[in-house]
């Protein structure tokens, strides 16, 4: 088998690159064979939202009853999609003047030195297409940072792809490396776009549920689920929504099972700099793992610039190739001026990261102490800026009902975690709060809950 040794198929020189010759496409080659994707195998259930949330939803996805009158159908892969819970809850927050501890982005802005770098890049004229797989200096900065964090030396040209946020890194990785029918293991609860992305690729999704109080990896269940038929595991550490961080022992277990069964790992590590109570470990750094891992990250969470959409995927060349294929057709290139700024950001001194952690730990303390004082059962959050709590002391039917009550009667927004599970029932006792807000906001939210939240 040929070993390819190519730079990326997209080249800055031409407006589009890949050519059909480059990809070796002809009409008979597809990323997917022409079969119906196995949507029926995915255990997707629509979370049970109460009617008032449904009516505030923006336009629905497909209405199957319209088959006869509306001749043109959207693709079948969209049948399970709906407006995200975040949009719904944000709309409710506005409607009720509630403090929004639901949506996972800061209400404070990024550091000036990074913003200034972007402005300089705009003024310097870096406003045209960036190289498809990343502005060279950013790829280098990412490699430098990755080496500092993991000790791994990666080739910026062959092993790093810059994408529009980690969201696109995930989409490109899944679409580039997963064929319809491929088995993919995810750990529930999970960031809600994973399920939708996997569904889009036609993957056969197998969920393994992490359970409170410590959301530990259920080793026996993983052993019985993983097999030689498994194509990939989608891993997120530090973990959204629980704040769990996978320990070295857990990662070693996953690694040995992956090596034994020849499974890939797609590792979402966007919160790696928000690791508070233990050190973040990239699974790619474990023996035998780099060759089978795609490590994904972004600028947004670390630098409080979630709207800039700068992310990346680090993987060995043979996996990077698949990521770049998909990326080329999804967005082709990433925002140019922001990439220049991202290179500056990633070279920030250690003091930036130390301060970031300290700030977030203070915020975490305010929220966690407040939630405990109010009467929630709070599960320990080791990383990310999320914490999940058990709301059942307050006597509501499920997480959605509790969140409705919290918005309307108390004026605080949390996210019902049932959306993060393949089986919503698994999440009905839990809700997620975020502490990526300024301290005043956090204190005000805690005050409201102390005042109005009744058991």
């Amino acid at each position, binding site marked *: 088998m040929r070993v390819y040794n190519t730079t990326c198929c997209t080249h800055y020189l031409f407006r589009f690159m890949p050519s059909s010759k480059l990809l070796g496409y002809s009409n008979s080659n597809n990323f997917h064979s022409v079969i119906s994707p196995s949507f029926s195998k995915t255990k997707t259930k629509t979370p049970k939202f109460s009617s008032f949330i449904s009516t505030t939803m923006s336009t629905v996805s497909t209405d199957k009853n319209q088959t006869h009158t509306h001749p043109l159908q959207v693709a079948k892969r969209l049948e399970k999609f709906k407006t995200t819970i975040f949009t719904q809850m944000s709309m409710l927050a506005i409607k009720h003047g509630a403090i929004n501890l639901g949506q996972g982005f800061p209400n404070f802005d990024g550091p000036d030195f990074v913003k200034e770098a972007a402005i300089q890049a705009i003024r310097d004229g870096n406003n045209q297409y960036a190289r498809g797989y990343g502005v060279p200096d950013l790829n280098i900065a990412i490699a430098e940072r990755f080496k500092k964090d993991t000790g791994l030396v990666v080739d910026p040209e062959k092993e790093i792809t810059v994408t*529009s946020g980690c969201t696109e890194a995930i989409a490109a990785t899944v679409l580039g490396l997963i064929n319809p029918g491929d088995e993919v293991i995810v750990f529930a609860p999970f960031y809600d776009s994973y399920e939708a992305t996997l569904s*889009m690729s036609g993957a056969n999704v197998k969920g393994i549920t992490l359970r409170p109080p410590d959301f530990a990896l259920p080793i026996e269940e993983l052993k019985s689920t993983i097999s030689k038929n498994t194509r990939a595991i989608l891993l997120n550490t530090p973990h959204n929504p629980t704040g769990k961080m996978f320990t070295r022992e857990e990662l070693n277990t996953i690694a040995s099972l992956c090596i034994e069964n020849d499974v890939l790992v797609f590792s979402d590590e966007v919160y790696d700099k928000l690791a508070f109570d233990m050190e973040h470990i990239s699974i790619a750094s474990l023996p035998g793992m780099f*060759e089978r891992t795609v490590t994904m990250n972004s600028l947004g969470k670390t630098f409080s610039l979630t709207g800039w959409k700068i992310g990346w995927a680090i993987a060995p060349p*043979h996996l990077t190739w698949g990521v770049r294929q998909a990326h080329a057709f999804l967005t082709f290139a990433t925002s140019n001026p922001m990439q220049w700024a991202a290179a500056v950001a990633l070279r920030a001194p250690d003091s930036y990261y130390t301060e970031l952690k300290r700030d977030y730990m203070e915020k975490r303390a305010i929220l966690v102490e407040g939630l405990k004082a109010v009467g929630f059962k709070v599960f320990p959050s080791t990383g990310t800026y999320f914490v999940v709590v058990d709301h059942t002391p307050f006597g509501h039917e499920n997480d959605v009902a509790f969140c409705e009550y919290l918005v309307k009667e108390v004026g605080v927004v949390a996210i019902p975690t049932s959306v993060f599970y393949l089986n919503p029932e698994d999440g009905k006792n839990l809700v997620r709060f975020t502490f990526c807000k300024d301290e005043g906001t956090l204190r005000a939210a805690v005050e409201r809950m102390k005042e109005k939240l009744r058991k």
Partner: protein
Amino acid sequence: MNSDRVIRKEEMEGKLSRAAKKLTSSPIQELSHLAQRCNAINLAEGFPDFPAPIHIKNAAVSAINSDFNQYRHVQGICQHLAKMVKEMHGLDIDPLTDVAISCGQTEAFAASIFATIDPGDEVILFDPSYETYQGCVTMAGGVPIHVPLDPPLWSLDPSKLLRSITERTKAIILNSPHNPTGKVFTKDELETIAGACCSRNCLAITDEVYEHITYDNQKHISLATFPGMQERTIITSSLSKTFSVTGWRVGWAIAPASIASAIRNIHIIVTDSAPAPFQEAALTALRSPPEYFETLRREYQSKRDYTIKLLAGVGFKIQFIPQGSFFLFAELPDDCPLSDVEFVKKLILKAGVVAVPGQGFFHTNLSSDEVSNASCNYQKRYIRFAFCKSEATLSAVSEKLGKLLDTEGRLALH
């Protein structure tokens, strides 16, 4: 640490998806490397080498300073687009439901394809075509079907289109103004396409990124304006070409509400949000006065005319004058023995200028019964020149070519 990275290449290559395994080295990629090594003047890349408009850059800077840096959806863009689409095409759209913002037209197109194409669906493309369309259709499991436009004027033969439509045809892709030829589809041609879509119940997905770059008082007509079309057309476009900010990644899809909603859902999965400060700047861009668009057109037209004069003057065959976009699809002179790729190679080495060999834009359709050496010969005779370049750049090209002329004033690269 790296000693642990034993890359068992053959085993790992088994991990690639089916398509990923078919990598071959491309002559176009080799040219690209060569051009870089020779520091060639770049008339290949389809983006400007002159600065973006100041008022728009200032808007972006201001947005960054005003903390528009978190995830956002700027509804104002949808409102401005509704206004523009009404003014330009007379179309009524609902800004609340009919618009999906995306990271560039690339993502709008990808999301539109993923929102509408099921595996096995056939999708019609007019050849020559911008490469990404086919790749995207294929990624979604669709089957690209190419309908050739007829040289030298790249006209649409209705019978070729109608012959290519089957009961599996889900959509027709239309790029007008057209890359690489610069063609602006005529009213008759659009009527033919519209008629086919309606009678055969297909969708249309348009790429209108060059909508504001048309020449000789030609107006860009959107396919959606034809009877029965608005309800079945997805219009995709972006800021990139109109405002010379190809690197900002702000685009959109306009479609009937249920389809726009589906596109939005895909967009949310793929990127979740277009870059926030540039969405803000888009508001300023889309509010540009009519003078901005007139100047844009006028300046590009003068670059077009200069480039045509230059290339025709040194022997290229230019039978079709571009009516839109910033590309010129020039033909090699009849007596030139070289293929497009060979010619561009010499152009780089001898003249220090690079352009794109046209063959990458042509696709042989296995189902076509017209494939033969003779009739497809033209596919290796065209070269695409981009004239979205500063006057200094175009003059430099003139100078370089000027040094390589034979006694008859024709380019001699041998």
